[in-house]
């Protein structure tokens, strides 16, 4: 990972919220952990017992250099290595929109972990909306920085999409944070927030 990307990584605003959410000393699995910036923060600040899964070789090396435990490979396959409820938290930081089979990944993540922390860029943020409206082109913004032909994102979803999806899948939203560059967004998040961060758990059977 080039240095600039690494710095950008470290600054990602959802990290602070995730770090605050995760309990001290918890067992944490970070899916798509990249060079390990978030995991390192969690180890240093929350003393978690952390593990990452990452498919890009150079990022795996960068994470090992941070003294982190990392599995090099596909994260769906890597999830399958763990028995039920091996972790307190499974983190999908900016990873959900990049997973081909969202339902399968979330189902596996909720099998392996008690809570899943998922964050993703909100496609219905006003900036991409205006981009589409005025330019008539696939949005390229700060939160969605990729050209349509060169993006790791395979799904374009909004905060509202995700809430509906969670209800349909019997997934309970325990906490949520909506973020833009100034911090937390409380009103009209689907329009005003660049990111959504959700803490999820498997809903008890009676709730479904």
């Amino acid at each position: 990972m080039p240095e600039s990307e690494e710095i950008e990584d470290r600054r990602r605003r959802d990290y602070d919220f995730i770090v605050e959410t995760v309990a001290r000393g918890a067992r944490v699995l970070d899916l798509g952990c990249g060079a390990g910036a978030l995991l390192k923060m969690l180890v240093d600040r929350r003393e978690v017992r952390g593990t990452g899964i990452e498919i890009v070789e150079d990022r795996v090396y960068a994470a090992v250099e941070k003294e982190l435990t990392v599995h090099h490979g596909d994260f769906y396959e890597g999830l399958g290595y763990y028995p039920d409820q091996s972790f307190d938290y499974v983190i999908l930081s900016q990873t959900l929109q990049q997973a081909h089979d969202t339902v399968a990944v979330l189902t596996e993540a909720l099998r392996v972990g008690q809570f899943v922390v998922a964050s993703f860029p909100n496609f219905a943020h006003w900036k991409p909306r205006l981009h589409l409206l005025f330019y008539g082109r696939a949005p390229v913004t700060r939160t969605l920085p990729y050209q349509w032909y060169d993006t790791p994102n395979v799904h374009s979803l909004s905060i509202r999409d995700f809430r509906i999806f969670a209800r349909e899948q019997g997934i309970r939203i325990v906490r949520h944070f909506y973020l833009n560059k100034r911090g937390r967004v409380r009103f009209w998040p689907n329009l005003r927030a660049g990111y959504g961060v959700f803490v999820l758990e498997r809903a008890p059977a009676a709730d479904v």
Partner: protein
Amino acid sequence: MSDYLISEKSLGASVGEVAPQSVEFESLPLDSGQTLAPVTIAYETYGSLNEDRSNAVLICHALSGDAHAAGYHAGDDRPGWWETMIGPRKGFDTERFFVICSNVIGGCKGSTGPISINPATGREYGLDFPVVTVGDMVRAQKLLVEHLGISRLLSVSGGSMGGMQALQWAVSYPEAVASCIPIAATQKHSPMQIAFNEVGRLAIMSDPNWNNGDYYRGDPPDGGLAVARMIGHITYLSDESMHEKFGRRLRDKSSLGYDFTMDFEVESYLRHQGEVFTRRFDANTYLYVTKALDYFDLSAGHGVLEEVFRDLPQDMRFLVIAFSSDWLYPPYQSKELVRALKGNGIDCSYLEMSSSFGHDAFLLENSDLTRMVWHFLEATAHRIGLRFD
């Protein structure tokens, strides 16, 4: 593993001149039920042991390796087999760690093996040498490690058969191992691996000079051993690396010979490798060590591999490394290992390094491998409270 001529320049700092050492023990019980007595272990060490004896790292060698893992013997310009990885500021950093490597029992480089004198007959053991296992090799290394006054190794590592010994260490002596780095290894030999070994053994045993292993007073079965080595060598390379290294280039001729002399570069290379090998290796040792490899199965008697790791201490750490083009010990075998470790909540990192060099990749200069091992050992040292100035 292959013999590589590595340029001095690429090797960086070296531990310099080293001297082989050896120690004799009264006896060693073997998995077969037999006892080997007495037993000599040849070994070398690099770096220095710290005061509380907590910085020792054991390196285990592969099929054709020996105790000479790093540095140079007096008057020899050829370094040890893992000079790329062991030395000052290298992966196994001898400025920080006390690195030990010993020749396996059954070997032919100083430890008791078929070439040693059988005290019962006064002649070389030959086939009277008992069949040994990877478990036996490790039991012998444990005697050595205790002899050196070390109760717990900071790490045990090796490639190929060395990686299998490292795994065996973790399972046999979990309290004596803080971390384990198996590289290009497996938890059990596959039918394909057994098959290649059996062809190698038959090549040796079909050589009339082999004489049921009793050849030490006459001509050794060099022809058979060379063929065994050639077969082995092919399995250590990859289709891609052979394309790159040889292509279809002809050897000392401009057109095909239309006879059965050597035509291609690759043929000449393999014959040379086979021939060189006979000068430094014993045919019976090849039989014994390949047999030990074929018998290796960590999960034997346990059913599933998960069971084997059930009693490992939760603070033991693993770094499992495989190479993408290794078709002899393919990455899937390392992943099976990783799955079983994770299933038991053991701290385990897995790296699948892209390489075109096949199984031999672990022996070649590789800055990623160096970096990863260095950092993993650093982290392990931190966890056990070991600090460096």
